[in-house]
């Protein structure tokens, strides 16, 4: 097991300076990992079937925080349908159900792929994505 690929610069950067934790109006949902205490709050501003803006605030480990921050950057502006498909794909990727090179074009997500080798930490990376999924369901 090699740790460094997980705690690489891009992950540490998103952990130390998480993006898009802000005050916006929209549908909100909270996510919680009971075993470790990771907490995520997502607010999604949906207009004309599009995810116009998103706020992701995390209180947790580097993996969970970075995952939420990266998600906020990548998913904003997508249509709801696109966002749902994207979430599904990322979830599969993090769980190791898609090839490692699936996100060669999005280096931040590729950086998260290290969790695929750490089964107990996958849930940390998944939490923001699952919380956003629940947020969008709530909006329907």
């Amino acid at each position, binding site marked *: 097991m090699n*740790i460094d690929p997980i705690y690489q610069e891009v992950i540490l950067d998103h952990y130390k300076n998480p993006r898009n934790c802000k005050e916006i109006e929209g549908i909100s949902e909270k996510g919680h990992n009971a075993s470790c*205490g990771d907490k995520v709050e997502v607010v999604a501003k949906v207009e004309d079937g599009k995810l116009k803006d998103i706020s992701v605030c995390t209180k947790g*480990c580097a993996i969970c925080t970075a995952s939420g921050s990266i998600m906020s950057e990548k998913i904003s502006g997508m249509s709801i349908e696109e966002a749902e498909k994207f979430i599904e794909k990322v979830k599969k990727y993090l769980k190791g159900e898609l090839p490692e090179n699936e996100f060669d074009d999005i280096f931040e997500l590729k950086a998260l792929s290290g969790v695929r080798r750490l089964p107990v930490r996958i849930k940390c990376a998944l939490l923001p994505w699952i919380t956003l999924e629940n947020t969008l369901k709530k909006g329907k």
Partner: protein
Amino acid sequence: MLDLKNDFPVFRENSDLCFLDSGASAQKPSYVIDFVSDFYRKTYANIHRGVYKLSWDTTVLYDKAREKTAEFIGVNNPECIIFTKNTTESINLVAYSFGNTLKEGDEIIVSIMEHHANFVPWQMLAKKKGIKLKIAYIDKNTLELPAENITSLITEKTKLIALSMCSNVLGTISPFVEVCKVAKEKGIKVLLDGAQYMPHHKINFTELGIEPDFVVFSGHKLCSFDGVGVLYGKGELLEKMEPFLTGGDMIETVSIEETTFAPLPNKFEAGTPPIGAVISLLKAIEYLENIGLDKIEEHETMLAKEAIKRLKEIEGVHVFAPEKVSNGIVSFTIDGIHPHDIATIFAEDNVCIRAGMHCAEPLITYLGQDSFARATFYLYNDLEDVERLIKAVKKCKEVFRL
């Protein structure tokens, strides 16, 4: 200094293992594993039922475990030792069966440093029956629990004090002796949660001159197999309490209309118990007593003190322990690194610690924290393990560019 790694096969099977999570569950010595494995090969049968030799021999061993457990905590009546699944089940048994005798308006006192096992059952009972649950707080600065923080909460309505003997997060020893004495004068029942205390300290309740009404602990934290917990209860209370689980083995007679219950301890041991685990408890207690509980306490305390001293020398590391350390529990945080990331980086070097809330969320919240990293030392750890811990902490800071 103790040098016992060779007694524990796990260290032979994992040559580079630095195991600092005995607070969650302890490793098992060959002394225990071999005996139980032999028992399953040669002797095993169900207890109490068969008239044949295997069943009789198994029953003798099972009863011997009960006698040994009574002796281990210094009580004179083995029939008041009930074997359960774990500490959690022991407490749930009391919350259910003793809880049945409580009524609306009664009060129960617990401390803020309880494990969820000694918190949630009382919270549930309180909500169900309209009982008031009162919380005794620790001193945030010293991390100690002064006896008056508990006794000052006592009123005429107080029926039970459920108190951990040792915090699984801080290692703080509660003032259980004083609390037992005050409670006895006032006719209040006391339950002592010894899950983190019993594996590390010699105790004899009779010699101490205190008579807790209930004492609970688990076998697996003191080197027995998992699956066996202990409930000691005062005979007069256990006699009056309703059974918790009902069915086989706990009855006297059963008719279509009615059931009468077996005498203690069987009344509280419904169904086939974890026989192998109970026998492993007998051997685990023998093993610990052969080494000496006082020696174990001294050894792990020495290691914890060394670890705390070294951790405090590292910038950004905060240790959460009372000034008087008397066991192997060391909880800490590192500025800028979440404990789960600490544990993950530790794991790469085969250093096993626990991170998170440690089943003590009210305490962690009270201390204004989200999570702790916790290293726990036990009889098989040594100074090399302290070195590994310190090295791993330094590595965390490097990985996080701190």
